[in-house]
């Protein structure tokens, strides 16, 4: 890949040394572009899905069928005035959106989008994902504190309380997958589920799937667990005082976190980029026609991407559907639900999976 990159730059007369320097930045630039595009599409999707679930049409003025609405919104957000209240803690106020956003960007690199499309393929991938996603909470608490606004403060505190109570069942549910796959490497976990829909971890650890799904909705602060930004109580929660690009960063982080958590659910429980059939569709359809292994590999690669995106958006649609249906929980009910119901359930799941692994 690097040779190709250097060659392209060479055509434009850019020296070799610049190619070497920029090569390290290049993947991150790609990740950032991917992230922004994903978020822009997700926002549009959310608005459209919610609109049709609530007997409306949704955005339909900018571009064909309102397709460019979120681009217009993003541009508007970029040109907005950046307002900071006089008594805010200037350093923390500026730092908080960055702390929220940066880990999310790194997690994108850890996700196995296809077999070869993994920017950072390391042995402790799964562990790193949860380590990084917990940092986001620190940023939210900081934002709540630095805004010097009581609503923001309450939102930040709620976010911390929520993260503590939900990450424990979340991690224990995920632990069962590590037990099943015998590895923390994301690719290994996906490969261990090969062999069609019935070899997915979903069936081996069904309770774990339920727990993980509920916890991930809480992790990305969405209804019915959107207490940190409960708009009927806390106006807008931790991001009440933010505007312009800083708010855009929170927004980006929130939606990309939703995308990532859906990719994670798919990777851990729904076979990741693997097809629901025993073999790739490309293999079944084209093996005798093509007779060209290289071309077949390209097709397989595309198909892997397709399956992952399809499954991910199915999960995202379910999350949006839940948002359109349910009211919000109260803070103490949320804690009770997590500690008294989800935590024992996740332990039960772990014991069942471990027993299954030991004897089968």
């Amino acid at each position, binding site marked *: 890949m690097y040779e190709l990159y250097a060659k392209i730059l060479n055509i434009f007369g850019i020296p070799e040394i610049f190619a070497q320097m920029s090569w390290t930045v290049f993947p991150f630039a790609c990740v950032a572009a991917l992230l922004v595009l994903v978020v822009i599409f997700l926002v549009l999707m959310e608005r459209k899905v*919610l609109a049709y*679930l*609530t*007997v*409306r049409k949704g955005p339909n003025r900018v571009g064909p069928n309102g397709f460019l609405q979120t681009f217009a919104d993003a541009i508007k957000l970029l040109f907005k005035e950046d307002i900071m209240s006089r008594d805010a803690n200037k350093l923390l106020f500026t730092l908080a959106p960055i702390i929220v956003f940066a880990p999310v960007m790194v997690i994108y690199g850890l996700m196995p989008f296809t077999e070869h499309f993994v920017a950072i393929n390391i042995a402790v991938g799964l562990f790193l994902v949860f380590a990084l996603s917990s940092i986001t909470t620190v940023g939210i608490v900081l934002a709540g504190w630095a805004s010097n606004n*009581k*609503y923001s403060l*309450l939102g930040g505190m709620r976010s911390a309380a929520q993260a503590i109570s939900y990450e424990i069942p979340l991690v224990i549910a995920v632990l069962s997958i590590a037990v099943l796959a015998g590895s923390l490497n994301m690719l290994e976990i996906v490969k261990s589920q090969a062999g069609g829909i019935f070899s997915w971890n979903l069936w081996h650890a069904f309770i774990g799937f339920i727990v993980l799904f509920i916890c991930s909705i809480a992790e990305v602060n969405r*209804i*019915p667990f*959107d*207490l940190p930004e*409960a*708009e*009927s*109580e806390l*106006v807008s929660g931790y991001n009440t005082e933010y505007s312009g690009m800083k708010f855009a960063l929170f927004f980006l982080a929130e939606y990309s976190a939703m995308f990532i958590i859906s990719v994670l659910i798919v990777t851990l429980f729904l076979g990741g980029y693997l097809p629901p059939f025993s073999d790739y569709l490309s293999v079944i359809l084209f093996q005798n026609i093509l007779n060209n292994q290289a071309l077949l590999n390209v097709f397989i690669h595309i198909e892997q991407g397709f399956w992952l995106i399809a499954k991910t958006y199915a999960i995202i649609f379910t999350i949006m559907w839940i*948002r*359109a*249906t*349910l*009211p*919000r*929980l*109260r*803070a*103490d*009910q949320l804690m009770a639900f997590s500690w008294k119901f989800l935590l024992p359930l996740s332990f039960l799941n772990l014991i069942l999976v471990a027993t299954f692994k030991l004897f089968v």
Partner: protein
Amino acid sequence: MSKLKENIIQKGMLINVGPQHPSTHGVLRLILTLEGEVIRNTKPVIGYLHRGKEKLAESRTYFQYLPMVDRVDYLASFFYQAALCYAVESIAGLKVPRRAEYIRLVTMELNRITSHLLWIGSFLLDLGATSPLFYVFRERENILKMLEELTGQRMMYNYYTFSGVKKELPEGWITRVLDLCKNMPKLFDEYEAIITKNPIFLERTRGIGVMKPESGLDYGITGPNIRASGVNFDLRKSDPYSVYGEIDFNTCLAGSGDSYDRYMVRIGELRESVKIIEKALAQLPGGIPERLRVKRVNCDCKKEECEYCGFDTQLTGKKINPAVFKVPAGEATAIIEAPRGIACCYVVSDGTNKPYRVKWRAPSFSSVQILPELIKDKSYSDLMPIFGSLDVVLPEVDR
């Protein structure tokens, strides 16, 4: 340590909710004292929407004041206009034809449905569920179309006049309203499916904001709020003002007085209102307007008791000239059952064409008063489920 500092430590965190807040239903301001997330003390501040409706009456003639009354409660305009009409009619001794009374009753019940529907939407929005708001707006729109066809307005109808109503029903209006009434119970079932059995909704509302019947009566709570506490008090039953006495309907009651019961009472009232409209339209004196017009041309007997051209089939009891309309000296009170409770209008006349004094009693005012008692020592998250369930409309509080 100074006294001030001690006070601050004891008082906990002061938080100012409103007047600009997403869910204070207008411009109510609440000064809350929080300990953590527990509300220790509440001070409602009202008056941000005060327009001087009572004082304005004194410098306007009765007919000039009549359209202004619609703005007292913008979600239930008919009721306040009806209250003023009943008060003035009883001072001036004007008789209202039964057909006009029935039309008033039908429009008031339609208005009650729109008001309760909007309440369901905003209450669920307070709880964090967004979809019901759009569903209720879909149904409310259908009713508003009917009312717009009848009165020319969507919110501020200005349809009643002293001794009757202003316009005849449009052609086919009755059939369309009856069609609407046929479909509505199905849609209420839809709401119940998404709301009533929802476990999170039950968790958020059951046992929250329990209003004891005694304290509710002490604060002067009326309407669905007090009926949810088990007090069987409905003016339509106990003191039938319009032609409610001629129509058979049930009063919806619930026992425990929590937010969930207030919701259930209102859902029940929606169904009852639909039945009332159906029955009232069936026994409307004179029947459908097209038929009435034809019969009246053929009849032309000018008798008081005639089925087609008698007094009871007229729209107004007496043709009044607004410019010279004078009410004899006296005073009268009219009380009616508005969607939020008892609305009361007290009019004093000194014999001129302007009222000497008009006093309004609005049910939401009492509901705001009881709020501090209901939310004391509750979580901050419970503020909106309790406040929302009381169905407070701020222009009614401030007037």
